[in-house]
Protein backbone atom coordinates (compact mmCIF):
# COMPACT_ATOMS: atom_id res chain seq x y z
CA UNK A 1 0.00 0.00 0.00
CA UNK A 2 2.83 2.41 0.83
CA UNK A 3 5.04 1.11 -1.98
CA UNK A 4 4.95 4.45 -3.78
CA UNK A 5 6.74 6.04 -0.84
CA UNK A 6 10.17 5.34 -2.27
CA UNK A 7 12.69 7.34 -0.22
CA UNK A 8 15.01 7.39 -3.24
CA UNK A 9 12.37 9.10 -5.30
CA UNK A 10 10.56 11.30 -2.81
CA UNK A 11 12.41 12.99 0.04
CA UNK A 12 9.38 13.37 2.30
CA UNK A 13 11.31 14.20 5.47
CA UNK A 14 13.56 16.58 3.55
CA UNK A 15 10.55 18.44 2.18
CA UNK A 16 8.98 18.80 5.63
CA UNK A 17 12.36 19.90 6.96
CA UNK A 18 12.30 22.76 4.45
CA UNK A 19 8.79 23.62 5.68
CA UNK A 20 10.08 23.69 9.25
CA UNK A 21 12.99 25.92 8.27
CA UNK A 22 10.74 28.30 6.37
CA UNK A 23 8.44 28.47 9.40
CA UNK A 24 11.14 29.00 12.00
CA UNK A 25 13.10 31.66 10.11
CA UNK A 26 9.90 33.47 9.10
CA UNK A 27 8.54 33.30 12.65
CA UNK A 28 11.68 34.84 14.11
CA UNK A 29 11.77 37.55 11.45
CA UNK A 30 8.05 38.32 11.85
CA UNK A 31 8.34 38.61 15.62
CA UNK A 32 11.18 41.10 15.31
CA UNK A 33 9.70 43.16 12.47
CA UNK A 34 6.20 42.94 13.97
CA UNK A 35 7.51 44.29 17.30
CA UNK A 36 9.24 47.17 15.53
CA UNK A 37 6.04 47.87 13.58
CA UNK A 38 3.91 48.00 16.71
CA UNK A 39 6.47 50.33 18.29
CA UNK A 40 5.99 52.66 15.33
CA UNK A 41 2.22 52.18 15.42
CA UNK A 42 1.96 53.53 18.98
CA UNK A 43 4.84 56.01 18.72
CA UNK A 44 4.27 59.72 19.39
CA UNK A 45 5.95 60.56 16.06
CA UNK A 46 3.18 61.02 13.45
CA UNK A 47 5.40 59.98 10.52
CA UNK A 48 6.21 56.62 12.12
CA UNK A 49 2.56 55.98 12.95
CA UNK A 50 1.64 56.87 9.38
CA UNK A 51 4.26 54.58 7.89
CA UNK A 52 3.31 51.63 10.08
CA UNK A 53 -0.40 51.92 9.50
CA UNK A 54 0.05 52.38 5.72
CA UNK A 55 2.40 49.38 5.60
CA UNK A 56 -0.01 47.20 7.53
CA UNK A 57 -3.04 48.23 5.50
CA UNK A 58 -1.20 47.55 2.25
CA UNK A 59 0.57 44.30 3.09
CA UNK A 60 -2.11 42.66 5.22
CA UNK A 61 -4.67 43.09 2.46
CA UNK A 62 -2.47 41.74 -0.33
CA UNK A 63 -2.82 38.01 -1.08
CA UNK A 64 0.21 36.10 0.17
CA UNK A 65 0.73 34.43 -3.22
CA UNK A 66 1.05 37.86 -4.83
CA UNK A 67 3.65 38.89 -2.25
CA UNK A 68 5.69 35.68 -2.61
CA UNK A 69 5.61 35.69 -6.40
CA UNK A 70 6.47 39.39 -6.42
CA UNK A 71 9.48 38.71 -4.20
CA UNK A 72 10.84 36.37 -6.85
CA UNK A 73 9.68 37.98 -10.10
CA UNK A 74 9.81 41.66 -9.18
CA UNK A 75 12.50 41.91 -6.53
CA UNK A 76 14.91 39.35 -7.94
CA UNK A 77 14.26 39.01 -11.65
CA UNK A 78 13.25 42.57 -12.50
CA UNK A 79 14.98 44.76 -9.93
CA UNK A 80 17.98 42.47 -9.56
CA UNK A 81 17.73 42.36 -5.77
CA UNK A 82 19.88 39.55 -4.40
CA UNK A 83 19.77 37.95 -1.02
CA UNK A 84 21.83 35.26 0.74
CA UNK A 85 22.59 32.11 -1.27
CA UNK A 86 24.33 31.27 -4.54
CA UNK A 87 21.88 29.00 -6.31
CA UNK A 88 18.45 29.92 -7.61
CA UNK A 89 16.94 27.51 -5.05
CA UNK A 90 18.69 29.26 -2.18
CA UNK A 91 17.72 32.66 -3.53
CA UNK A 92 14.06 31.69 -3.73
CA UNK A 93 14.17 30.07 -0.28
CA UNK A 94 15.32 33.33 1.31
CA UNK A 95 13.08 35.49 -0.86
CA UNK A 96 10.11 33.40 0.29
CA UNK A 97 11.13 34.00 3.90
CA UNK A 98 11.36 37.71 3.17
CA UNK A 99 7.81 37.59 1.82
CA UNK A 100 6.50 35.59 4.79
CA UNK A 101 8.14 38.02 7.24
CA UNK A 102 6.70 41.04 5.42
CA UNK A 103 3.21 39.48 5.51
CA UNK A 104 3.11 37.69 8.89
CA UNK A 105 4.63 40.64 10.76
CA UNK A 106 1.45 42.63 10.11
CA UNK A 107 -0.55 40.01 12.01
CA UNK A 108 2.05 39.89 14.78
CA UNK A 109 1.84 43.68 15.00
CA UNK A 110 -1.95 43.72 15.24
CA UNK A 111 -1.95 40.97 17.90
CA UNK A 112 0.61 42.90 19.91
CA UNK A 113 -1.40 46.08 19.57
CA UNK A 114 -4.37 44.26 21.05
CA UNK A 115 -2.02 43.08 23.80
CA UNK A 116 -0.91 46.65 24.51
CA UNK A 117 -4.56 47.56 25.02
CA UNK A 118 -4.81 44.97 27.81
CA UNK A 119 -2.06 46.76 29.79
CA UNK A 120 -3.71 49.30 32.11
CA UNK A 121 -2.87 52.93 31.30
CA UNK A 122 -1.55 53.37 34.85
CA UNK A 123 1.40 51.06 34.10
CA UNK A 124 2.72 53.41 31.43
CA UNK A 125 1.86 56.48 33.53
CA UNK A 126 3.82 55.16 36.49
CA UNK A 127 6.78 54.44 34.22
CA UNK A 128 6.65 57.92 32.69
CA UNK A 129 6.30 59.50 36.13
CA UNK A 130 9.55 57.78 37.14
CA UNK A 131 11.39 59.46 34.27
CA UNK A 132 11.52 56.63 31.75
CA UNK A 133 11.57 57.69 28.09
CA UNK A 134 9.12 56.43 25.46
CA UNK A 135 11.33 53.54 24.32
CA UNK A 136 11.92 52.43 27.91
CA UNK A 137 8.25 52.64 28.82
CA UNK A 138 7.41 50.53 25.79
CA UNK A 139 10.32 48.10 26.01
CA UNK A 140 10.52 47.55 29.78
CA UNK A 141 6.96 47.99 31.02
CA UNK A 142 4.32 47.80 28.28
CA UNK A 143 5.56 45.30 25.68
CA UNK A 144 6.66 42.58 28.15
CA UNK A 145 3.13 42.61 29.58
CA UNK A 146 1.55 42.85 26.14
CA UNK A 147 3.53 39.82 24.90
CA UNK A 148 2.40 37.74 27.86
CA UNK A 149 -1.24 38.46 27.15
CA UNK A 150 -1.06 37.58 23.44
CA UNK A 151 0.83 34.27 23.47
CA UNK A 152 -2.38 32.45 22.52
CA UNK A 153 -3.29 34.70 19.55
CA UNK A 154 0.36 34.65 18.46
CA UNK A 155 0.29 30.86 18.42
CA UNK A 156 -2.62 31.08 15.97
CA UNK A 157 -0.51 33.37 13.82
CA UNK A 158 2.35 30.86 14.00
CA UNK A 159 0.08 27.97 13.00
CA UNK A 160 -1.28 30.01 10.09
CA UNK A 161 2.31 30.79 9.09
CA UNK A 162 3.28 27.10 9.15
CA UNK A 163 0.52 26.34 6.67
CA UNK A 164 1.12 29.51 4.65
CA UNK A 165 4.67 28.35 3.88
CA UNK A 166 3.09 26.04 1.28
CA UNK A 167 2.74 29.12 -0.92
CA UNK A 168 6.54 29.08 -1.35
CA UNK A 169 6.07 26.22 -3.81
CA UNK A 170 4.76 28.89 -6.21
CA UNK A 171 8.34 30.09 -6.66
CA UNK A 172 9.84 26.62 -6.68
CA UNK A 173 10.94 26.18 -3.07
CA UNK A 174 11.02 22.43 -2.52
CA UNK A 175 8.94 22.32 0.66
CA UNK A 176 6.12 19.94 1.54
CA UNK A 177 3.44 21.30 -0.81
CA UNK A 178 5.88 21.32 -3.71
CA UNK A 179 6.58 17.62 -3.15
CA UNK A 180 2.89 16.92 -2.74
CA UNK A 181 2.15 18.43 -6.13
CA UNK A 182 4.81 16.22 -7.66
CA UNK A 183 3.45 13.13 -5.93
CA UNK A 184 -0.17 13.80 -6.84
CA UNK A 185 0.92 13.91 -10.47
CA UNK A 186 3.10 10.81 -10.39
CA UNK A 187 1.15 8.66 -7.93
CA UNK A 188 -2.43 9.38 -8.95
CA UNK A 189 -3.42 5.80 -7.92
CA UNK A 190 -2.71 6.61 -4.29
CA UNK A 191 -3.94 10.17 -4.37
CA UNK A 192 -6.03 9.94 -1.18
CA UNK A 193 -3.07 8.54 0.71
CA UNK A 194 -0.81 11.27 -0.61
CA UNK A 195 -3.18 13.94 0.65
CA UNK A 196 -3.57 12.16 3.97
CA UNK A 197 0.17 11.92 4.47
CA UNK A 198 0.68 15.64 3.91
CA UNK A 199 -2.32 16.60 6.01
CA UNK A 200 -0.96 14.43 8.82
CA UNK A 201 2.49 15.95 8.38
CA UNK A 202 1.10 19.44 8.98
CA UNK A 203 -0.96 18.31 11.95
CA UNK A 204 2.21 16.84 13.46
CA UNK A 205 3.87 20.23 13.07
CA UNK A 206 1.04 22.49 14.22
CA UNK A 207 -0.66 20.49 16.99
CA UNK A 208 2.31 20.49 19.39
CA UNK A 209 2.90 24.19 18.63
CA UNK A 210 -0.64 25.00 19.71
CA UNK A 211 -0.47 22.83 22.83
CA UNK A 212 2.94 24.10 23.88
CA UNK A 213 2.07 27.76 23.41
CA UNK A 214 -1.26 27.26 25.16
CA UNK A 215 0.69 26.01 28.17
CA UNK A 216 3.21 28.88 27.91
CA UNK A 217 0.31 31.33 27.70
CA UNK A 218 -1.09 30.15 31.03
CA UNK A 219 2.39 30.03 32.56
CA UNK A 220 3.40 33.62 31.76
CA UNK A 221 0.02 35.33 32.28
CA UNK A 222 0.37 38.52 34.32
CA UNK A 223 -1.64 38.43 37.54
CA UNK A 224 -3.41 41.68 38.36
Amino acid at each position, binding site marked *: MFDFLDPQEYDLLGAFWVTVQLTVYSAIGSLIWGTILVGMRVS*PVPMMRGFASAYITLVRNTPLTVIIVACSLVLKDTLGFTIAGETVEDQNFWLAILGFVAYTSTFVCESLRAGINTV*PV*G*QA*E*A*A*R*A*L*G*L*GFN*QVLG*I*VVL*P*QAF*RSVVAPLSSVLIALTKNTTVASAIGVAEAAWLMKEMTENESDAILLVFAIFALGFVVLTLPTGLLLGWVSRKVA*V*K*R
Partner: protein
Amino acid sequence: MTEANTAPPMIRMVEVDKYFGPLHVLKNITLEVPRGQVVVVLGPSGSGKSTLCRAINRLEPINSGVIEVDGKPLPAEGRELAGLRADVGMVFQSFNLFAHKTIVDNVMLAPIKVRKMAKSDARRTAMELLERVGIANQAEKYPAQLSGGQQQRAAIARALAMKPKVMLFDEPTSALDPEMINEVLDVMTTLAEEGMTMLVVTHEMGFARNAANRVVFMSDGDIVEDATPQEFFTAPKSARAKDFLSKILTH
Protein backbone atom coordinates in the same frame (compact mmCIF):
# COMPACT_ATOMS: atom_id res chain seq x y z
CA MET B 1 18.22 87.02 53.21
CA THR B 2 18.41 83.37 54.05
CA GLU B 3 18.61 80.67 51.43
CA ALA B 4 15.07 79.55 52.02
CA ASN B 5 13.83 82.98 51.05
CA THR B 6 15.83 83.37 47.86
CA ALA B 7 15.33 79.84 46.54
CA PRO B 8 12.43 79.46 44.10
CA PRO B 9 9.33 77.64 45.35
CA MET B 10 9.38 73.89 44.67
CA ILE B 11 6.16 74.10 42.71
CA ARG B 12 4.81 77.25 41.11
CA MET B 13 1.64 77.36 39.04
CA VAL B 14 0.59 80.64 37.46
CA GLU B 15 -2.77 81.18 35.78
CA VAL B 16 -3.08 77.55 34.72
CA ASP B 17 -6.07 76.59 32.61
CA LYS B 18 -7.04 73.10 31.57
CA TYR B 19 -10.00 71.86 29.56
CA PHE B 20 -11.33 68.35 28.93
CA GLY B 21 -13.26 69.14 25.77
CA PRO B 22 -15.83 71.75 26.78
CA LEU B 23 -15.26 71.06 30.49
CA HIS B 24 -13.12 73.71 32.21
CA VAL B 25 -11.37 71.58 34.87
CA LEU B 26 -8.68 73.99 36.06
CA LYS B 27 -9.72 77.65 36.12
CA ASN B 28 -6.89 80.14 36.25
CA ILE B 29 -5.09 78.29 39.03
CA THR B 30 -2.23 80.05 40.81
CA LEU B 31 -0.47 78.11 43.54
CA GLU B 32 2.96 77.99 45.12
CA VAL B 33 4.41 75.22 47.25
CA PRO B 34 7.61 76.32 49.03
CA ARG B 35 10.25 73.66 49.65
CA GLY B 36 9.69 71.56 52.74
CA GLN B 37 6.00 72.33 52.91
CA VAL B 38 3.23 69.73 53.00
CA VAL B 39 0.15 70.91 51.13
CA VAL B 40 -3.05 68.91 51.23
CA VAL B 41 -5.56 69.48 48.46
CA LEU B 42 -9.16 68.82 49.47
CA GLY B 43 -12.38 69.09 47.57
CA PRO B 44 -15.38 67.19 46.30
CA SER B 45 -15.09 64.70 43.44
CA GLY B 46 -14.74 66.40 40.09
CA SER B 47 -13.31 69.56 41.59
CA GLY B 48 -10.12 69.22 39.56
CA LYS B 49 -7.77 68.29 42.40
CA SER B 50 -6.41 65.13 40.75
CA THR B 51 -5.94 66.99 37.49
CA LEU B 52 -4.02 69.68 39.36
CA CYS B 53 -1.74 67.04 40.84
CA ARG B 54 -1.20 65.28 37.49
CA ALA B 55 -0.53 68.55 35.69
CA ILE B 56 2.56 69.18 37.82
CA ASN B 57 4.56 66.40 36.12
CA ARG B 58 2.67 66.85 32.87
CA LEU B 59 0.76 63.58 32.95
CA GLU B 60 -2.03 66.01 32.04
CA PRO B 61 -0.81 68.70 29.65
CA ILE B 62 -2.33 72.12 30.38
CA ASN B 63 -3.91 74.50 27.89
CA SER B 64 -2.39 77.73 29.16
CA GLY B 65 -0.41 79.16 32.04
CA VAL B 66 2.96 78.35 33.57
CA ILE B 67 4.06 75.48 35.78
CA GLU B 68 7.55 75.52 37.27
CA VAL B 69 9.21 72.83 39.35
CA ASP B 70 12.19 74.03 41.39
CA GLY B 71 12.39 77.20 39.31
CA LYS B 72 12.40 75.43 35.94
CA PRO B 73 9.37 75.58 33.62
CA LEU B 74 7.93 72.20 32.59
CA PRO B 75 9.59 71.15 29.32
CA ALA B 76 7.59 69.76 26.39
CA GLU B 77 7.37 65.98 25.91
CA GLY B 78 10.81 64.39 25.47
CA ARG B 79 14.12 63.75 27.19
CA GLU B 80 14.03 66.94 29.28
CA LEU B 81 10.56 66.19 30.59
CA ALA B 82 11.68 62.68 31.54
CA GLY B 83 14.58 64.28 33.43
CA LEU B 84 12.19 66.50 35.36
CA ARG B 85 9.81 63.64 36.13
CA ALA B 86 12.71 61.66 37.57
CA ASP B 87 12.97 64.36 40.26
CA VAL B 88 9.24 64.41 41.00
CA GLY B 89 7.93 61.36 42.85
CA MET B 90 4.36 60.35 42.15
CA VAL B 91 2.05 57.98 44.01
CA PHE B 92 -1.19 56.94 42.34
CA GLN B 93 -4.58 55.96 43.65
CA SER B 94 -4.34 52.56 41.96
CA PHE B 95 -0.69 51.94 43.00
CA ASN B 96 0.36 51.09 39.40
CA LEU B 97 3.17 48.78 40.44
CA PHE B 98 4.60 47.02 37.41
CA ALA B 99 2.57 43.81 37.45
CA HIS B 100 5.22 41.63 35.75
CA LYS B 101 8.03 42.52 38.14
CA THR B 102 8.69 41.66 41.78
CA ILE B 103 8.40 44.33 44.45
CA VAL B 104 12.15 44.82 44.76
CA ASP B 105 12.52 44.95 40.96
CA ASN B 106 9.79 47.61 40.87
CA VAL B 107 11.81 49.74 43.28
CA MET B 108 15.15 49.11 41.52
CA LEU B 109 13.95 49.67 37.98
CA ALA B 110 14.06 53.44 37.63
CA PRO B 111 17.34 53.99 39.54
CA ILE B 112 18.99 51.48 37.17
CA LYS B 113 17.36 52.57 33.92
CA VAL B 114 17.13 56.32 34.52
CA ARG B 115 19.87 57.11 37.03
CA LYS B 116 22.19 54.41 35.60
CA MET B 117 22.88 53.18 39.13
CA ALA B 118 24.81 49.92 39.53
CA LYS B 119 22.50 46.97 40.12
CA SER B 120 23.98 46.05 43.50
CA ASP B 121 23.71 49.62 44.79
CA ALA B 122 20.15 49.91 43.51
CA ARG B 123 19.23 46.68 45.23
CA ARG B 124 20.74 47.80 48.52
CA THR B 125 18.88 51.14 48.39
CA ALA B 126 15.68 49.36 47.41
CA MET B 127 15.90 46.99 50.35
CA GLU B 128 16.57 49.90 52.74
CA LEU B 129 13.50 51.69 51.44
CA LEU B 130 11.33 48.58 51.66
CA GLU B 131 12.59 48.17 55.22
CA ARG B 132 11.62 51.75 55.92
CA VAL B 133 8.05 51.27 54.68
CA GLY B 134 7.87 47.94 56.52
CA ILE B 135 7.60 45.42 53.69
CA ALA B 136 11.16 44.17 53.23
CA ASN B 137 9.90 40.63 53.77
CA GLN B 138 7.65 40.95 50.69
CA ALA B 139 10.50 41.99 48.37
CA GLU B 140 10.49 38.91 46.15
CA LYS B 141 6.72 38.73 45.69
CA TYR B 142 4.70 40.05 42.78
CA PRO B 143 2.35 43.03 43.28
CA ALA B 144 -0.81 40.90 42.92
CA GLN B 145 0.31 38.82 45.92
CA LEU B 146 0.32 41.85 48.28
CA SER B 147 -2.52 43.63 50.04
CA GLY B 148 -3.50 47.08 48.83
CA GLY B 149 -1.77 48.81 51.73
CA GLN B 150 1.44 46.86 51.11
CA GLN B 151 1.27 47.67 47.40
CA GLN B 152 0.85 51.37 48.09
CA ARG B 153 3.79 51.36 50.50
CA ALA B 154 5.87 49.63 47.82
CA ALA B 155 4.78 52.31 45.38
CA ILE B 156 5.95 55.01 47.81
CA ALA B 157 9.30 53.20 48.14
CA ARG B 158 9.54 53.05 44.36
CA ALA B 159 9.03 56.81 44.10
CA LEU B 160 11.50 57.51 46.93
CA ALA B 161 14.17 55.39 45.25
CA MET B 162 14.66 58.19 42.74
CA LYS B 163 15.49 60.62 45.60
CA PRO B 164 12.82 63.06 44.43
CA LYS B 165 12.79 66.75 45.34
CA VAL B 166 9.05 66.69 45.78
CA MET B 167 6.38 64.01 46.13
CA LEU B 168 2.93 64.13 44.58
CA PHE B 169 0.22 61.90 46.06
CA ASP B 170 -2.92 61.46 43.97
CA GLU B 171 -5.54 60.07 46.39
CA PRO B 172 -3.11 57.47 47.77
CA THR B 173 -5.61 55.86 50.14
CA SER B 174 -8.85 56.06 48.16
CA ALA B 175 -8.56 52.52 46.77
CA LEU B 176 -7.70 50.94 50.12
CA ASP B 177 -9.75 48.99 52.61
CA PRO B 178 -10.26 51.05 55.79
CA GLU B 179 -7.93 48.93 57.91
CA MET B 180 -5.06 49.52 55.50
CA ILE B 181 -5.34 53.28 55.25
CA ASN B 182 -3.37 53.98 58.41
CA GLU B 183 -0.29 51.98 57.43
CA VAL B 184 0.02 54.17 54.33
CA LEU B 185 -0.73 57.42 56.16
CA ASP B 186 1.92 56.53 58.76
CA VAL B 187 4.55 56.27 56.05
CA MET B 188 3.41 59.58 54.58
CA THR B 189 3.42 61.30 57.97
CA THR B 190 6.99 60.15 58.63
CA LEU B 191 7.97 61.46 55.23
CA ALA B 192 6.37 64.82 56.01
CA GLU B 193 8.20 64.99 59.33
CA GLU B 194 11.50 64.35 57.56
CA GLY B 195 11.00 67.54 55.58
CA MET B 196 9.89 66.20 52.20
CA THR B 197 8.01 68.69 50.07
CA MET B 198 4.63 67.09 49.42
CA LEU B 199 1.44 67.83 47.57
CA VAL B 200 -1.25 65.42 48.69
CA VAL B 201 -4.67 65.06 47.12
CA THR B 202 -6.75 63.14 49.62
CA HIS B 203 -10.02 62.69 51.45
CA GLU B 204 -8.23 61.88 54.73
CA MET B 205 -9.17 64.76 57.00
CA GLY B 206 -7.10 63.36 59.86
CA PHE B 207 -3.95 63.47 57.75
CA ALA B 208 -4.78 67.00 56.61
CA ARG B 209 -5.18 68.15 60.22
CA ASN B 210 -2.08 66.46 61.58
CA ALA B 211 0.54 66.45 58.86
CA ALA B 212 -0.29 69.37 56.56
CA ASN B 213 1.21 72.83 56.78
CA ARG B 214 -1.46 74.13 54.45
CA VAL B 215 -4.84 73.08 53.15
CA VAL B 216 -5.97 74.04 49.67
CA PHE B 217 -9.69 73.58 49.05
CA MET B 218 -10.84 73.21 45.45
CA SER B 219 -14.30 73.32 43.99
CA ASP B 220 -15.35 73.29 40.32
CA GLY B 221 -11.80 73.90 39.09
CA ASP B 222 -11.17 76.87 41.40
CA ILE B 223 -9.00 77.18 44.48
CA VAL B 224 -11.60 78.43 46.91
CA GLU B 225 -9.55 78.45 50.11
CA ASP B 226 -5.88 78.34 50.96
CA ALA B 227 -5.33 78.28 54.70
CA THR B 228 -3.66 76.48 57.59
CA PRO B 229 -5.43 73.28 58.64
CA GLN B 230 -6.40 74.97 61.88
CA GLU B 231 -8.11 77.85 60.09
CA PHE B 232 -9.69 75.69 57.44
CA PHE B 233 -11.26 73.13 59.74
CA THR B 234 -12.38 75.51 62.49
CA ALA B 235 -13.29 78.63 60.53
CA PRO B 236 -13.78 78.02 56.81
CA LYS B 237 -14.52 81.28 55.02
CA SER B 238 -16.42 80.19 51.93
CA ALA B 239 -19.89 78.72 51.80
CA ARG B 240 -18.66 75.88 49.60
CA ALA B 241 -16.00 74.83 52.10
CA LYS B 242 -18.51 75.00 54.95
CA ASP B 243 -20.90 72.84 52.98
CA PHE B 244 -18.13 70.33 52.15
CA LEU B 245 -16.99 70.10 55.76
CA SER B 246 -20.50 69.75 57.11
CA LYS B 247 -21.03 66.74 54.85
CA ILE B 248 -17.79 65.07 55.88
CA LEU B 249 -17.34 65.85 59.53
CA THR B 250 -20.80 64.99 60.79
CA HIS B 251 -20.12 61.25 60.61
